């Protein structure tokens, strides 16, 4: 029998409006891309952490392969595409975003949301190991050029054997040089001259979006949390990424903020009675995007934060704004500073937890405190070792510090890695444990 989750309150301001807007922003992306192509704009495939503001200053139309694969998965249509890629020769443990995308290439670019235009440029970015190969695959299929934007990351180590500031300046100059070459590539591709004022204006919009986003993601500190960080948060994030560095993006986030403020004022959240607050580590299981959070909602648990919330604010994370007086240098810094945990100049702050180490453990404990969370759910993604490799260590170390942990395993796009009975069993047991812990704690307070 299908479980019914009660809505928080019949008088709660609708998140539905925002959800529809997000849906149409992402859904219309391909139709918009075709319109842009008809206007003569060039199409660039770029990953969600790519140099979006810069590309947009050339009227280049962006297609985000990760969002396209996530959309397939969320619509429960990814599997035939993934299987097509496997039939073609890709291993089942290849990133399922990639195999879904390859399946799309092998299906005459027919996506469930419409036909996708082929790229004139693919922008590789060295933030994720998979991007290197993915962009090569795209190039191979579509015979388009690749531009690789390489930004060095330095592992945080005690007694770092170099002058960090000097090294940072060298790295920055290296990235600025690449940005300048990317500008030249875009000028050649589009025939448009680079307009620094326009770029600066995009950065300004990104700064405004970043500031709004930072406000939004901090609002889950309210009790009850006005929204669920997974169920609603990832939707907001999809919209914010698609519209990054645009006027529409600012309006979109203002609308979300307004809705959330209204919900806070009314004291309503995603569940009728918020009993537990949880952190979600890593990306969601898109094929069962609603199902998993709703299993938690049933026990009165709400997700209040995920470190992936950094993504829509590339460069503006935690109010680190682009410095408009020195746009290129500042842009380079923001590319490099994205991985706080891999930048030994800065302590890890709310990072993705990709690297591990003592600082990362403290970081997660701080998050627990900041958001008043009762536990952490780690989501190990079968086809993404990048995201999941460190989770077993985290589980061990964070749990030793007394934090309740649940490890779930599934996948970002491949539905074959999800087992409903096993997932439900783990979630039920975890929620029982949290309830018992709460009860024992209240009893010991009562006895004191």
């Amino acid at each position, binding site marked *: 029998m299908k479980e019914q989750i009660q809505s928080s309150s019949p008088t709660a301001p609708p998140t539905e409006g925002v959800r529809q807007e997000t849906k149409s922003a992402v859904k219309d992306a391909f139709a918009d891309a075709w319109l842009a192509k008809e206007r003569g704009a060039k199409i660039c495939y770029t990953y969600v952490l790519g140099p979006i503001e810069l590309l947009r200053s050339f009227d280049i139309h962006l297609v985000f392969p990760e969002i396209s694969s996530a959309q397939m998965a969320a619509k429960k249509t990814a599997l035939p595409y993934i299987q097509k890629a496997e039939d073609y020769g890709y291993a089942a443990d290849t990133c399922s975003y990639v195999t879904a995308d390859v399946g799309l290439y092998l299906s005459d670019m027919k996506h469930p949301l419409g036909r996708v235009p082929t790229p004139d440029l693919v922008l590789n970015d060295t933030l994720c190991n998979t991007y290197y190969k993915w962009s090569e695959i795209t190039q191979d299929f579509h015979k388009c050029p690749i531009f690789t934007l390489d930004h060095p990351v330095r592992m945080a180590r005690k007694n770092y054997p170099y002058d960090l500031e000097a090294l940072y300046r060298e790295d920055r100059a290296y990235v600025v040089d690449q940005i300048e070459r990317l500008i030249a590539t875009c000028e050649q591709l589009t025939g448009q001259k680079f307009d620094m004022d326009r770029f600066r204006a995009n950065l300004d919009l990104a700064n405004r979006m970043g500031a709004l986003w930072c406000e939004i993601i901090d609002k889950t500190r309210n009790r009850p949390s006005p929204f669920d960080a997974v169920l609603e948060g990832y939707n907001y994030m999809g919209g914010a990424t698609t519209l990054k560095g645009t006027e529409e993006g600012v309006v979109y986030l203002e609308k979300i903020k307004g809705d959330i403020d209204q919900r806070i004022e009314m004291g309503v959240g995603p569940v009728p009675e918020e009993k537990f607050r949880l952190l979600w580590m890593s990306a969601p299981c898109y094929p069962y995007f609603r199902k998993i959070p709703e299993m938690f909602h049933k026990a009165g648990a709400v997700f209040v934060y995920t470190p992936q919330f950094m993504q829509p604010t590339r460069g503006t994370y935690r109010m680190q704004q682009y410095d408009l007086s020195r746009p290129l240098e500042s842009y380079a810094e923001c590319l490099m500073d994205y991985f706080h945990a891999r930048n030994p100049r800065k302590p890890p702050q709310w990072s993705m937890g990709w690297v591990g180490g003592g600082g990362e453990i403290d970081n997660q404990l701080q998050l627990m405190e900041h958001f008043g969370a009762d536990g952490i759910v780690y989501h190990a993604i079968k086809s993404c070792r990048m995201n999941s490799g460190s989770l077993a260590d985290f589980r061990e170390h964070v749990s030793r510090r007394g934090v309740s942990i649940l490890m779930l395993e599934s996948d970002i796009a491949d539905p074959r890695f999800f087992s409903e009975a096993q997932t439900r069993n783990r979630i039920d*047991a975890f929620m029982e444990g949290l309830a*018992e812990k709460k009860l024992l704690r209240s009893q010991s307070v009562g006895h004191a």
Partner: protein
Amino acid sequence: MIYAAGVDSGSTQTKGIIVDEDGKIVGRALLDTGANTVRSSERAFRAALENAGVEANAVKYTVGTGYGRYKITFGNTQITEITCHAKGAHHVFPGTCTVVDIGGQDTKGIRVGQDGEVVDFVMNDKCAAGTGRFLGVAAEVLDLPLDDLGPISLEAKKPVDISSTCTVFAETEIMSYLAQKKKLEDILMGMHLAIAARTVSLVRRIGMNQQVTFTGGVSRNRGMVHALEEALETPLNVSEESQYMGAIGAALFALERARTV
């Protein structure tokens, strides 16, 4: 006198337990789950009542557990077997800090707090390697009753190395060792050691603290107890009740609720 019941609908077997108001086990039943979970749960409940000599209306509260818990429609509530095994193990062996539960299709490691609460747990992931099913396959291939595997394996002098962690491929390895005229007891102990190795790596993820209590259907197998004690380098708490531990925990939760209802 009031009574409470626990019914554990496992993937292979269903267990029923009746406790009296002092938490003493007065009735038990064990039968195959089969295809109809609702019916086997009801039958286990009835059989446990009969074993206890108690009428159904004397049972004030019933808790269902196990994978089929949501099918235990006559019960008052459902609690996962993870929470129930911790509770049951803590009741039977109060010094329990870690529970190793090997059932028909899954293996669990549970870290237990001082009040019998679950602190952390880990389970096998969507694969029956290292579970009771592994032994079920061996019994089928070797045409032996399941209950004979443990005693025969204890005769082993030179256990074979079963390298496959896949239950299906392990069958191929057994066939290959049989063709090489390896001794039956050595092949069987090899199987037990393979499960033990898999279990150890699972349990270490949650950090193993003594005392360790072994529960679930496979805990009846003496060969498995031996292999696991070797692999974990620690003696295990095992009792006649070990197979019923989930149902015992469920019955104890039922008793707690019966007292407050």
